[in-house]
């Protein structure tokens, strides 16, 4: 079997395995999603003004996504280290780039579901309204930003996995790196929501920025994940 076919097989196996673990444990549904919803409700309590909430809703959605993402990434690598599974994969000579891709895909799927929930929460809780064009732009923003967050999250999750104090190290390493995604995704979502009088067309350049970030970290992650985990 060719190397490409082998990598594709491992990628699918790892992604399916991570999603099966989520399906079996229901951590996303029972813990992470309620946590994200609580964050959104707390933002509403803290700001307590419909006009302000509608204006800042995009930023709150993406902040809640980033906080929740930290929990999902920690979980993604805790299952690998609980009984030495990642070490076993490494020992078995399984292609680390394919493992990265599989884990990143599983993380992206979970993040996308979470983001849909958060956008729906913003619509219901903050009274956000969208046009059809805005809705389409919001979906594209979610997809592209999710690819970027999933790839950089997997890379830094792997980096922190073997480190002492990884629970506190991960946010410290990851949050500054994803600042461009927070900025780009928030601006694009503002355009999609029409927050502050913005128009849908103003969002596309920001989606371009998100795309560059996603491509960059997909490439960097595929190459760097193995050596980083090895160290």
């Amino acid at each position: 079997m060719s190397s490409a076919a082998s990598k594709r097989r491992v990628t699918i196996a790892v992604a399916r395995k991570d999603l099966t673990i989520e399906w079996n444990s229901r951590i996303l549904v029972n813990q992470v999603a309620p946590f994200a919803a609580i964050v959104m409700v707390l933002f509403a309590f803290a700001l307590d003004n419909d006009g302000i909430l509608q204006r800042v809703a995009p930023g709150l959605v993406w902040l809640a996504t980033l906080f929740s993402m930290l929990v999902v990434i920690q979980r993604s690598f805790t299952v690998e280290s609980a009984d030495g599974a990642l070490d076993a994969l490494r020992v078995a000579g399984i292609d680390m780039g394919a493992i990265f891709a599989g884990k990143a895909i599983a993380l992206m799927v979970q993040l996308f579901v979470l983001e849909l929930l958060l956008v729906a929460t913003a619509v219901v809780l903050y009274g956000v309204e969208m046009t059809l064009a805005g809705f389409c732009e919001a979906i594209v923003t979610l997809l592209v930003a999710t690819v970027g967050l999933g790839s950089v999250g997997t890379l830094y999750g792997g980096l922190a996995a073997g480190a002492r104090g990884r629970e506190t190290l991960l946010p410290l390493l990851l949050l500054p790196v994803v600042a461009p995604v927070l900025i780009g995704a928030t601006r694009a979502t503002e355009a999609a929501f029409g927050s502050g009088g913005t128009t849908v067309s103003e969002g596309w350049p920001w989606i371009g920025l998100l795309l560059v970030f996603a491509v960059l970290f997909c490439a960097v992650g595929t190459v760097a994940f193995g050596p980083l985990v090895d160290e």
Partner: protein
Amino acid sequence: MDTVIELSGVVAVLGQFPALAGIDLAVQRGEIVLLQGPNGAGKTSLLRVCAGLLPIERGTGHVLGIDLATNREAIRSRVGLLGHANGLYLDLTVMQNMQFWASTVGATKSEVDSAMATMRIDGRLARVKASQLSAGQRRRCALASLIVRRAEIWLLDEPHAGLDAAGRDELDALLRSAVSSGATVVLASHERDRALGLATRTVTIDGGGAS
């Protein structure tokens, strides 16, 4: 007989401390070699060197003809290392764990079924989450994954740990069967009497050197 592991004056370092201090070792295909020595002697480090996980600082080493100094990553897919951890996903069932390992190496369903039957983790146990297994059952599951991966050299660190009497007998029979099929086994075990009965040769390691 061909030599599958050949180490000469190998020095390996863990952090700042020497884990192996100039070890010489030659293992022929089909042998069952028992590594013995006190805790901290370097048995686990030696197994990790042979698996291509721990780099060598000095000396020369070849595993299955592959140079440890220049191409140790290539060794990993041809050897199976079972350390203190079992490498299982605790939120997956036994069957899901085995299917995952099988899909990473392209093993067939019949190979999975055969490995699970050999290690007695089929039937009702196949549907149990790994987190709910006893230590011995987890060990058997890990060994089954080693069978599925078709390793040419089995590097086993305390393989009998956690197994009941029947499980230990089955493991010994499995290792003899693997050897008769062309595999080679290097194991470190504190269960001296049982391991001596199994091994075809014993190597003593003390202070990072072999004798």
